[in-house]
């Protein structure tokens, strides 16, 4: 047991140490400005590296994924566990488990060759034609390889994960809570909103954070559809702009990173991603533990 604990700690220290060591050259070259810089130029003699666009790309694409994915996932979970009779709910739950196990590159392939055209035809172009002239958010001719597509496909990828965990969490709520609500004349909707969600909020939040963790770190799928802009261009000025995330630029460039600064810059992006995901995790844990904190003297 001490061995196992030692191993996990050892791996954490090892990863952290090599990431920090690997990113040292770029920090001595760019200094703290690496975090805020927007340029990205690997040409020797004109080198400039800044992480900001990719941090923005990561956060925006994940935010789109969460905004779309979380409500749909909760809807699916509520439908399966509260509304549909078991003979529908059980097979739907099973299908969702299968969807959750599909490797992300398959979602990526499908998105690249099929789905992005649908997004352009049915969502992006209508939005552009309707609001492109008035709302800056939509003011760009859509091609389908952009941050909006990436966000939607990420949402499709995380929906099975969030909804299957949320379903388990809703199933774990004792029936006595539902009965209490119904006995007060609550409708099914009111029971879900005012009794079940509050009861399970810590667990549901945990499910959403798990999905966020997947979205933030997802690499291949994003690389295939986000448009892979570089430098200041990767900061999306509209929903339909190509962008780049921390993990997708690493995946795009690790093969060509032959100079010290270039490879060090990519490792430093890895460090930023590491800090970002760790921050999300720790933040989520704090939030969850604050929510479930029980008043002294309380008992189940």
């Amino acid at each position, binding site marked *: 047991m001490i061995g196992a604990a030692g191993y996990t700690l050892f791996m954490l220290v090892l990863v952290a140490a090599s990431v920090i060591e690997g990113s040292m050259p770029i920090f001595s070259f760019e200094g703290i400005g690496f975090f805020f810089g927007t340029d990205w130029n690997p040409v020797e003699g004109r080198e400039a590296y800044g992480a900001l666009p990719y941090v923005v790309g990561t956060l925006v694409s994940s935010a789109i994924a969460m905004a779309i994915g979380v409500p749909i996932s909760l809807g699916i979970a509520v439908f399966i566990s509260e509304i549909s*009779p*078991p003979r529908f709910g059980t097979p739907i739950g099973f299908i969702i488990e299968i969807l959750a196990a599909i490797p992300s590159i398959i979602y990526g392939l499908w998105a690249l060759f099929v789905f992005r055209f649908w997004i352009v035809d049915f969502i992006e172009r209508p939005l552009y034609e309707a609001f492109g002239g008035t709302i800056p958010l939509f003011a760009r001719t859509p091609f389908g390889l952009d941050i909006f597509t990436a966000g939607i496909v990420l949402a499709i990828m995380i929906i099975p994960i969030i909804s299957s965990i949320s379903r388990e969490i809703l199933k774990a709520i*004792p*029936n*006595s*809570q*539902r*009965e*209490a*609500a*119904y*006995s*007060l*004349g*609550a*409708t099914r909707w*009111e029971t879900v909103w*005012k*009794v079940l969600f*509050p*009861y399970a*909020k810590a667990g549901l939040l945990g499910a959403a954070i798990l999905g966020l963790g997947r979205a933030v770190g997802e690499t291949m799928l994003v690389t295939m559809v986000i448009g892979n802009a570089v430098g200041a261009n990767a900061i999306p000025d509209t929903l339909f702009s190509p962008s780049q995330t921390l993990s997708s630029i690493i995946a795009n460039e690790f093969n060509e990173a032959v100079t010290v600064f270039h490879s060090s810059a990519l490792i430093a992006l890895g460090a930023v991603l590491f800090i970002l995901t760790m921050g999300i995790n720790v933040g989520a844990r704090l939030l969850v533990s604050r929510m479930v904190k*029980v*008043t002294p*003297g*309380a*008992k*189940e």
Partner: protein
Amino acid sequence: MSWMSSEEYANTTSYKLSLLSDTKRRGYKVSVKNLNSWFGSKQALKDINFDVKENTVTALIGPSGCGKTTLIRCLNRMNEMTSSATVKGSVYLDDIDIYASNVDPVIIKRRMGMVFQKPNPFPTMSIYDNVAAGLKLNGIRNKALIREIVEESLKGAVLWDEVKDELGKPGLSLSGGQQQRLCIARALAMQPEVLLMDEPTSALDPIASAKIEELMNELRKELTVIIVTHNMQQAARVSDYTAFMYLGELVEYGPTKQIFENPQKELTERYISGKFG
């Protein structure tokens, strides 16, 4: 009646009276008529018939598995929560058949409160919010009114003196007996006409049980109480009428005194005297 339009006819007293079932006319609050219930293919209730008078306490007794909990859950359509359950027959609340297709079960549950075997306060809510929960669900926004009803209900459940200084504490911080009285207060806040109690003291210690039994005596003045209990002494102490059930059938129903002192059926007599069950 050619001299009257159908609209006028619908407003006549005689027409309205004809809509009343005989439940109300005979002075009963709840009437159960030919009630059958199944779980899957297993029949849990067999042709149950009985009437409950207003402002009385009626006890349902019988050995485990006799269907008394199923019966009480059929009385406010709570049984429908169980997905395999089916119900046939009628239950009248005043003049309404609660199983009629045009009756909204939500309304029925508002008129017939329920208290469960295990106390089930809402864990994320304070004592105050637990009691106010039903009112808020029903769209009452007037804070002063809610406050008044919460106090009244907690007094009605004989919990007010114990919690009046800590209404903001979580409902789960109370003891088991207090939690059960909190659930009673929560049901009372809806101002139900009938209160259904499913073994409300089975999870409680004797002192807490005694408090709830006392409470039932008070409740009878305001509403009609139907209680399931596996404790015969409790039935004898608190109820005016007793129904003895066995294997899904209602064996005998009558005034409590008669059931306990002079039962008409041999089966009842054997159960009351502790020969089985």
